[in-house]
């Protein structure tokens, strides 16, 4: 029996969010709060010759202008700037010296009594540079690319000969531009300075402990002097996985001025740090006449910066998803004078799977096989990259249920063969895949004499529903009403949690919450056993039931004890237990992954070339979905992101300036309400006892993976035009 898990529970933090009471990083304050505003460089490479701050400093209300010349001491060693999601290389050190490494690099921070004054004074600062030639063209740097420093699955067979000799084959190159996370809340840090020099920091982050450790290391602050508290995060999608420069600058100002400082980046400045890397993917794919893959050659060139090597899991999926005897993978990085790319929703997978699933569609057409049937013929339940079985892989069921809901059987294979008046109709599909990971995580559970249960862990809720699902897990284990359970997160002093990302929060922190609650239950049962002639004396946890603040014997429900009475007799107002959940060894014998099948209908106007995604069905196999409302919402959000990736999103770079030109959300397009139509989510039943004790694989990323390819394939089916350059805009369809 389950009271809450798998049910549609409304978000426990919903009322705070709809009333404006949820406080985000840039919304905390104190009486002595002052405000910062960042000045960014206007060149991409070179050095600062001088910074004229006189005019800014003379504005009434300006407290200071901090530059590399007058900043407080900060660490110089690279290792001090390493964070939990750092890329390999020499990490960026804000305001460290006169070197300029990328356009819009922060070069000064104005601190003033008010936001308006700080912003105005920032406009008065003049910086003289000595510019050096820069490189911002990925195609021009293609020949300078180096091997990506990341483990790769081994090659198999002889992919080149197999491709050369195959009866059916395709060769294609796919390009995807830089994309920006653009969470609605801009990156912000509020540093509350206490008179004893200790800092309470509200930072927009996906890991409060990551931010706390980062600034402790940079400013040489003793453990315990920095506490990061971030109860709400206004979206992040990966942008909060690494501490961003506003955290360093706000802390620097607070320490220098011995005052509390708030620093919020502008939307323009949200384009001054990490982004999904521009990527070129070359594919050679071949099959026999029955449509069985015989060769896969996937070669990728990704963008990185001049100072770090950003790698992501972009080619690995081509080794694992389908059965194929001959395989060759290549992944290179080309350094550009831009900021280092950054993990962005389903990093790597959305790119690699865009290319793989586009190539699969092209090959299905070359073999004259229905694209869905083609994928089914190449299905494998053994991971060919590791020769391990998947712990579960209900992908065939995703194909079946998704196709049925979509009506795929009514599709005609020929491009331009379906229409609705003046609209060319296209139906396309793709497979999606993402890893089902688990990382060590800790949690604490406290039961109080008033019957309330408080569970905590230093994880985050970036809109993913962490508050809600953890509350559901704890309430379920303890048999308590949801209202009696509180889950605390977003505070660096709470039990250790991994970064909130990678779809592993439910798997990692959820397992810790369950384990902490069960440990606490064991303690309560042990206490009950200590009573004289206790009816519980010979029982273990599986012989008793926790319900509504009582423990009773499963086989004799009239034998029961109130938890409050146990605490009273023990003379304590509460009892607590902590636990650390780690991935079990058994996982090593399996590949663990989530899968999806995405079906898309597009309508392309024959005269105007406008493209609309009129319908999409996504069938998801992600193990057990514990919290249905936020869970479904995550998949819907991923589908919307897929629409953006396929049709709208593109960081437009002026290569002569190495500067993003559309650095605002009027010109960097992502979907609005009118772009989104009929979206349908199916959660396919999937049982998995390997991934973790909850059987939940995580669902933050899987919703977006495959969507761009499914849309591109649908556009081909509608128009006969294969666009291999994202985003698919009307000019490319009809050029």
């Amino acid at each position, binding site marked *: 029996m389950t009271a809450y898990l798998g049910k549609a529970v409304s978000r426990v933090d919903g009322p705070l969010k*709809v009333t404006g009471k949820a406080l985000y990083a840039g919304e905390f304050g104190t009486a002595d709060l002052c405000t910062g505003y960042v000045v960014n460089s206007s060149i991409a490479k070179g050095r600062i010759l001088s910074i004229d701050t006189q005019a800014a400093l003379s504005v009434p209300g300006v407290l200071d202008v901090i530059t590399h010349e007058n900043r407080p001491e900060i660490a110089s060693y690279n290792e001090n700037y390493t964070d939990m999601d750092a890329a390999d290389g020499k990490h960026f050190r804000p305001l460290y010296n006169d070197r300029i490494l990328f356009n819009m690099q922060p070069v000064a921070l104005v601190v003033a009594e008010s936001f*308006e004054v700080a912003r105005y004074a920032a406009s008065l600062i003049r910086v003289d540079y000595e510019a050096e030639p820069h490189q911002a063209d990925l195609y021009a740097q293609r020949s300078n690319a180096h091997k990506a420093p990341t483990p790769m699955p081994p090659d198999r067979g002889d992919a080149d000969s197999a491709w050369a000799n195959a009866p059916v084959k395709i060769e294609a190159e796919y390009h995807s531009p830089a994309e920006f996370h653009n969470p609605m809340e801009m990156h912000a840090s509020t540093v509350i300075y206490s008179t004893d020099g200790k800092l309470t920091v509200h930072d927009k982050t996906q890991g409060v402990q990551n931010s706390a450790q980062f600034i402790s290391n940079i400013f040489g602050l003793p453990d315990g002097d920095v506490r990061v508290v971030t109860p709400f995060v*206004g979206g992040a999608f990966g942008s909060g996985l690494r501490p961003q420069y506003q955290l360093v600058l706000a802390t620097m100002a607070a320490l220098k001025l011995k005052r509390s400082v708030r620093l919020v980046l502008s939307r323009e400045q949200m384009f001054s740090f990490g982004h999904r890397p521009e990527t070129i993917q070359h594919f050679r794919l071949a099959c026999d006449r029955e449509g069985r893959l015989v060769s896969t050659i996937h070669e990728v060139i990704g963008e990185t910066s001049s100072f770090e090597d950003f790698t992501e899991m972009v080619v690995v999926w081509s080794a694992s998803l389908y059965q194929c005897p001959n395989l060759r993978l290549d992944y290179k990085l080309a350094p550009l004078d831009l900021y280092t790319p950054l993990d962005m929703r389903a990093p790597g997978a959305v790119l690699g799977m865009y290319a793989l699933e586009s190539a699969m569609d092209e090959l299905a057409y070359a073999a004259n096989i229905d694209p869905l049937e083609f994928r089914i013929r190449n299905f494998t339940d053994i991971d060919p990259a590791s020769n391990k079985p998947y712990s579960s892989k209900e992908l065939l069921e995703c194909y079946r249920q998704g196709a049925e809901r979509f009506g795929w059987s009514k599709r005609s294979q020929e491009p331009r063969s379906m229409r609705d008046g003046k609209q060319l109709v296209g139906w396309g599909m793709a497979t999606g895949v993402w890893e089902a990971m688990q990382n060590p995580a800790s949690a604490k559970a406290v039961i109080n004499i008033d019957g309330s249960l408080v569970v905590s862990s230093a994880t985050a809720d970036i809109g993913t529903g962490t508050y809600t699902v953890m509350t559901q897990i704890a309430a379920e284990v303890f048999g308590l009403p949801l209202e009696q359970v509180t889950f605390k997160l977003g505070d660096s002093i709470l039990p250790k949690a991994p970064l909130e990302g990678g779809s592993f929060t439910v798997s990692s922190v959820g397992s810790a919450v369950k384990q902490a609650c069960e440990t606490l239950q064991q303690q309560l049962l042990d206490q009950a056993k200590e009573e004289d002639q206790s009816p519980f004396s010979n029982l273990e946890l599986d012989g008793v039931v926790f319900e509504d603040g009582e423990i009773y014997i499963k086989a004799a429900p009239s034998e029961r004890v109130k938890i409050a009475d146990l605490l009273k007799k023990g003379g304590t107002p509460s009892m607590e237990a902590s636990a650390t959940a780690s991935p079990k060894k058994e996982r090593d014998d399996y590949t663990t992954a989530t899968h999806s099948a995405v079906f898309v209908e597009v309508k392309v106007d024959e005269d105007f070339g406008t493209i609309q995604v009129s319908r999409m069905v996504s069938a998801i196999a992600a193990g057990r979905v514990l919290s249905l409302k936020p869970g479904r919402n995550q998949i819907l959000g991923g589908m919307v992101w897929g629409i953006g990736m396929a049709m709208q999103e593109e960081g437009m770079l002026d290569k002569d300036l190495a500067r993003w030109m559309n650095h605002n959300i009027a010109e960097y397009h992502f979907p609005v309400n009118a772009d989104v139509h009929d979206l349908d989510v199916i959660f396919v039943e999937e049982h998995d006892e390997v991934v973790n004790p909850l059987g939940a694989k995580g669902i933050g990323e899987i919703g977006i993976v495959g969507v761009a390819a499914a849309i591109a394939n649908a556009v081909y089916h509608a128009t006969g035009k294969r666009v291999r350059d994202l985003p698919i805009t009307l000019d490319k369809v009809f050029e």
Partner: protein
Amino acid sequence: MNATPARQLRPDAGADTHTISLNINGKQHELAVEPWTTLLDLLREHLDMTGTKKGCDHGQCGACTVLVNGTRINSCLSLAVMQDGAEVTTIEGLANGDDLHPMQAAFVEQDAFQCGYCTPGQICSAIGMIAEGKAQTRDEIREQMSGNLCRCGAYNNILAAIEQAIPACKGGLRE
């Protein structure tokens, strides 16, 4: 009405201040504001009413939507001094204690948000849109709500929430 004396806000840059009168969520305020302060920054930076969100400061995202005399506007595109004498309703002024406005309740029930940052703007915009009488079909709602971006992509649930709340909101703002 609870009138409060004209309040000098945060220390300024020596700019002249203008005294304006604003009714915010039923409470009368006399405020000395600088001419360069937007209605959004007045709320967030000076009055600590952070329920109204800043997502771009350029009128591109709708997160700062409030109701001024019942009409939805982007508060980042209006200087506070332009609103002298106006009645402003923000997200903080919609519920009656713990009793949520029907639009707020519908947003919770339909899970019409994830991170919650665009949500106050979505809710104020939806109430304003219904008062405009333009939301007759689902496609019209989608079009009329397209000035309110949601990066989490909760648009289908936002649409469902608005559809649910329309009957209860028809008379404009609930008393």
